[in-house]
């Protein structure tokens, strides 16, 4: 037995009567030999089942009796909703006790007979394999697949062409109309509205150190049309004000308005919205991957995985004194894309 290699074992058809290695002797459980231990195990299993039933009753009682607004202070675990906690504990406990009880029953009390079931080779017996092969050959001859060349060749041609629709479908995965990625809603003269409240802003509304999240005025009209989220996501900006002499460089001459700068809110790395603006350092920190942009220096990257500066929006005021975009974004906002070059 020991001289046989594994390949010989795999190809052999004879099932050996003897196990390949000696089995350890069967040891009886305590519950098999001691009737008192068996009775104890029986009681344990029954107790678990009864407890489970009691927990179900407690579940119903908690459902009926505990007001859903009641809270419990669990010290280090915080303040939790009492109803949720009790319902979860009772129902979870009831299911768990049925499971533990069943396993305990199976392990301690159910029959402890050990059965050896040897693995056998996976391949079919030789005669079955020969028979299947012979049947296949007969079928091949009867179908005329070999003689009828025109049928065979047209079938092969049809099968070769069959994947073409699947390849055509791949076109839908892209490239998309990349102009969608290049453009935002912002255009010359669009008023800058504060997010949520949609109030227009005057320059004097921002003092040095102020941060405002804002959107273009036309955004609400777009909301009925498709791709609202895309339009909103691309057009989100932040406004910050610093002392004009603190601005070291900008992406365009005079793109600020008296020290008020407008930048895209969308990280150029993978597009997280950023508003972690540190007003002393003028750094804008992305919470996703810690890309850091210096807004006092053209929005250039000073740290992190972002490869491109934060696009700046040129701003000015209209004749009524409200802050407006002096032009649209001059470079695509958000993460890089293949066609961007």
């Amino acid at each position, binding site marked *: 037995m020991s001289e046989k290699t594994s390949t010989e074992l795999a190809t052999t058809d004879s099932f050996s009567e003897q196990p390949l290695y000696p089995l350890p002797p069967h040891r009886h*459980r305590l519950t098999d030999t001691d009737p008192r231990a068996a009775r104890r195990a029986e009681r344990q299993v029954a107790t678990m089942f009864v407890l489970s039933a009691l927990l179900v009753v407690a579940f119903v009682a908690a459902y009926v009796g505990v007001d859903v607004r009641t809270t419990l202070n669990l010290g280090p*675990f915080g303040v939790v909703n009492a109803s949720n906690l009790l319902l979860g504990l009772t129902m979870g406990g009831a299911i768990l006790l049925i499971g533990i009880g069943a*396993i305990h029953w199976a392990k301690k009390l159910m029959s402890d007979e050990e059965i050896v079931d040897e693995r056998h080779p996976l391949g079919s017996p030789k005669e079955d394999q020969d028979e299947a092969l012979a049947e296949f050959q007969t079928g091949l001859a009867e179908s005329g697949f070999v003689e009828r060349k025109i049928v065979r060749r047209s079938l092969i041609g049809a099968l070769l062409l069959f994947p073409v629709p699947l390849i055509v479908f791949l076109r839908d995965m892209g490239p998309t109309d990349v102009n969608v990625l290049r453009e935002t809603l912002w255009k010359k003269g669009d008023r800058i509205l*504060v*997010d949520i409240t949609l109030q227009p802003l005057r320059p004097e509304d921002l*003092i040095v150190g102020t941060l405002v999240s804002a959107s273009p005025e036309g955004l609400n009209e777009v909301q009925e049309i498709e791709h609202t989220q895309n339009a909103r996501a691309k057009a989100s900006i932040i406004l910050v004000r610093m002392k004009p002499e603190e601005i070291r460089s900008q992406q365009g001459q005079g793109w600020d308005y008296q020290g008020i700068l407008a930048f895209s809110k969308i990280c150029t790395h993978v597009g997280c919205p950023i*508003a*972690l603006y*540190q*007003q002393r350092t003028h750094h804008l920190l992305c919470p996703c991957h810690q890309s850091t942009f210096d807004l006092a220096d053209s929005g250039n990257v000073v740290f992190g995985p972002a490869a491109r500066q934060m696009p700046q929006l040129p701003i000015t005021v209209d004749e009524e004194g409200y802050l407006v975009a002096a032009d649209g974004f001059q470079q695509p906002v958000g993460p890089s894309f293949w066609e961007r070059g």
Partner: protein
Amino acid sequence: MTSSSVRRHKATGLAVLLVGLLATGFGYAAVTGTAQASAPTANASQIEAGKKLYLEGCATCHGLAGQGGSDGPSLIGVGAAAVDFQVKTGRMPLAQPVNQAPRKPPVYNDEEIAALAAFVASLGAGPAIPTAEQVSTENADLAEGGELFRTNCAQCHNFAGKGGALSYGKYAPSLMDATPTEIYEAMLTGPQNMPNFPDASLPEEEKQAIIKYIQNLQQGESPGGLALGSLGPVTEGVFIWTAGLGILLAAAVWIGAKVR
């Protein structure tokens, strides 16, 4: 017609000058008048007491006249609100130069803080300490506060107000211990690296709504059970991959173990 418009009266220039001067004067009075009205009512002795405290505890960094220096920013125009916030939360005076002043028990008592605030407010007009009425959340809209919080505050202070990391050892502090007045003052003055949110861009009622939302967070109720610090997927992931999976593995081992 032509001759009269060309040959102006001698007094015309004088009259224009007079009107201009008067308009400027009244305009200035009106502007400074409102500024004074919003400043806290401080008497001279309080300012004097504040100055004494200032020279002892603050002037080393912020300069003898509050003009600032290499160790501390100028305090001219920061207003009483900034002083009240920084000193009451113990952030000032700073024990040693650090990237970020931590919250600690206040060094000065309320009377001294009021004196300091009065002195710094006298250096230049700035935001006053908000009144109890200003920080009242009685009529505030909690839902709107949540929306405003998520737009303006959550990026740094975390969606549950637990705070978060910034760059170079700086951090946005947890809001769990902040009082309504402190929150209001922080929004108004922008302490340390926090941007400011003046009333013009974030009006008083919106600030009140945000305070109401933060108070709601501070109650700490967690209807979903154990919040694990409300820090998001990292703590939740660590918990479920260690404790959760550990329990499952232990159960599997127990089920498969041989019984004696």
